[in-house]
């Protein structure tokens, strides 16, 4: 039972890490390597809003998500738009932004383990004899709600449909009057907002440390590669696959092999099915 419960929690955690990354790539074909840095940055923004400005938790959440979305959009408009379409340059530029954010935070003294966010609900409960805290249950609930929201948003709203249109066929979308750059800005903003949501849900479980930005990026990339880069459904499926594989590894092999699972999943996917579980890049598969 503990494998089922903690496997689900771990899978939803991975999905939260990855959905923003998958969204940005799915719409604009932009591998946003600053995703992990934005995750950490949003944690520090929330911390500052609560501890420096003295605002309440709910207000801090709203402000953090809005500010992070604006930062994400600004990153695209100021930096990434100039290298759009040049895959290697996009990776280098976005990773450079990540380094600037993370090392900048460290340089400004955001280090150590004293930066924490409050949990939404204190305490724990027991499910079938397995002890689990309310915050983790909330993570699962928010993760499920987020997937439902994304589905509704991308199927029943103008912007969502435009985003899907861009993701499916950029040229056809352009012919229908959808502005590619505007959609990329929206995707970056929304992707960053999702990173902020993940941070706001997950960071209260621990503390805000700069180094976690790199881990989040690696896990998000692993989930997206296994799921098929650009596929949101694939990302969710892959999150469950890797999430449960990690928990089974912890239980049967040892906790220190946990990170190997994600890296092994990347290698195996690239060898066996380079386009991933639900990947749309069939040409990649054919080339290999």
């Amino acid at each position, binding site marked *: 039972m*503990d494998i089922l419960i*903690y496997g689900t*929690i*771990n899978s939803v*955690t991975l999905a939260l890490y990855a959905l923003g990354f998958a969204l940005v790539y799915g719409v604009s074909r932009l591998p946003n390597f600053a995703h992990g840095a934005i995750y950490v940055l949003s944690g520090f923004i929330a911390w500052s809003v609560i501890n420096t400005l003295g605002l309440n938790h709910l207000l801090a959440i709203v402000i953090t998500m809005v500010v992070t979305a604006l930062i994400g959009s600004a990153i695209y408009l100021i930096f990434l738009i100039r290298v759009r379409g040049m895959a290697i340059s996009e990776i280098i530029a976005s990773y450079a932004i990540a380094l600037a954010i993370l090392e900048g935070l*460290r340089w400004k003294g955001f*280090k*150590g*383990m*004293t*930066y*924490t966010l*409050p949990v939404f609900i204190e*305490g*724990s409960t027991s499910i079938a004899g*397995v*002890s*689990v*805290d309310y915050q*983790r249950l909330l993570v699962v609930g928010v993760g499920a709600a987020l997937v439902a929201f994304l589905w509704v948003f991308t199927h029943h709203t103008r912007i969502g449909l435009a985003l899907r249109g861009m993701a499916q066929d950029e040229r056809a979308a352009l012919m229908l009057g959808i502005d590619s750059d505007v959609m990329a800005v929206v995707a970056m903003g929304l992707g960053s907002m999702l990173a902020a949501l993940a941070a706001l849900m997950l960071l209260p*479980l*621990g*503390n805000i*440390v*700069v*180094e*976690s930005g*790199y*881990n989040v990026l690696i896990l998000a990339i692993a989930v997206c590669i296994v799921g098929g880069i650009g596929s949101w459904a694939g990302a969710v499926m892959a999150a469950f696959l890797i999430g449960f594989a990690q*928990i089974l590894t*912890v*239980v049967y092999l*040892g*906790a*220190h092999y*946990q*990170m190997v699972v994600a890296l092994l999943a990347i290698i195996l996917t690239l060898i066996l099915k380079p386009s991933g579980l639900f990947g749309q890049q069939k040409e990649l598969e054919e080339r290999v």
Partner: protein
Amino acid sequence: MSRRRSVVLSMFLLMTVLSFVLVAPVRAADPIVLGCPLSTAFLYGWDAERGFTLAVEEINAAGGVQVGTEKRPFKMEVIDTRDLEPGVPVSEALLAVEKLILDKKASFILGGPVRSEAALAAMALLSKYKKVSILTSGVLTPKYHAMVAEQYDKFKYCFRIHGEATNLVGEIFANFSQLKEKYGFNNLFIMAQDVSHARGAADIVKKIATDKGWNVTGLEIYPTGATDFSLGLLKAKDTKTEIINIWMDMPESAILLKQWFDMKVPALPFGSTLAAAEQPGFWKATEGKGEYTLCNVVNAGNAPSNATEWTMKFYNAYTKRWNVEPEGLGTSSSYMAVYVLKDAIERAKSLDSDKIVAELEKTDLMGVYGRLRFDPKSHQVIPATDPKEGAVGSILQWQAGKRVVVYPKSIAMGEIQLPPWMKK
């Protein structure tokens, strides 16, 4: 040139010459450069840096170091080795050490590298450049002083002024025995970080515990940067564990204690290395959930006690200087390393490495954490449980928001308490 202009020019030249003549004799002597390779973004780096800074400021304010006939000040050069960060290769720390020696012209290396793997790799470099080094923070592997003992001529420049894993293991077993006697505890679960000293220490603890009749209910190794310990804690709970022995220096270890509290695991968290719990900010970071956590701050002075007359004097001076109490395991040892080095330089009347090694071997100084002497063969500081005999350790427990020293008895300020959900 007008007469007026030539007078002004002459006066200017005269003043320039006079300034050289008059000022030169009172010009400050060249500083003695202390190279400090530290992982400054982490507790075991910044605590050492602050300890060094405080000692250097005190010594310089008192006139500096007497080297033969002249007084010379200390000057610190700190480079961030980043060796405590996950994924940073050891070679980065070696580059930092080499830069301190060649570029910053460090006469001595104090502090790190902080990660055991990096410190072991740096030994050859210190030998190559004949630079005296005193480790003051983080490096707990017994292999360090074992290598000095095995190849004395090669590694004689390497000293360590704080306790190491073997001492820590001895200290925790002294406490385990007390807990066994008092509460009948017999089940031990070990959680360690996937780094050299922690893995090694965890294996040693497991072996010794088994030999001593403890039931070791599990040994879990976590990658550096791990953020979820739920399954390990569940295992501990399911196996009726009574003590969880923790070896982790990553800041994420605070998460482990929060999870332990949320899950109300009926086992006492006993950190040997537990960086998160060493810091005064731990209480706030865990919102008080870390209460009852025990951890070893390796040497006295890193938590309040009256080990020697110097202990609280240092403790208060540090708190006043940095607006925070001494934090991690490298604080008092870094502070004392500067004083020990000053003492050796003054006796050697020289900065010559071989002479300093000889004098450091003769060190016998009552410091912040007891009598400081180095083993002449291994260059490891000599440990003791009585500060009059040697360097004393310090195990603290978080009680009502305060760090209370509970071991050794000679300096204890309180006794180990159990969380309410563990009381029998």
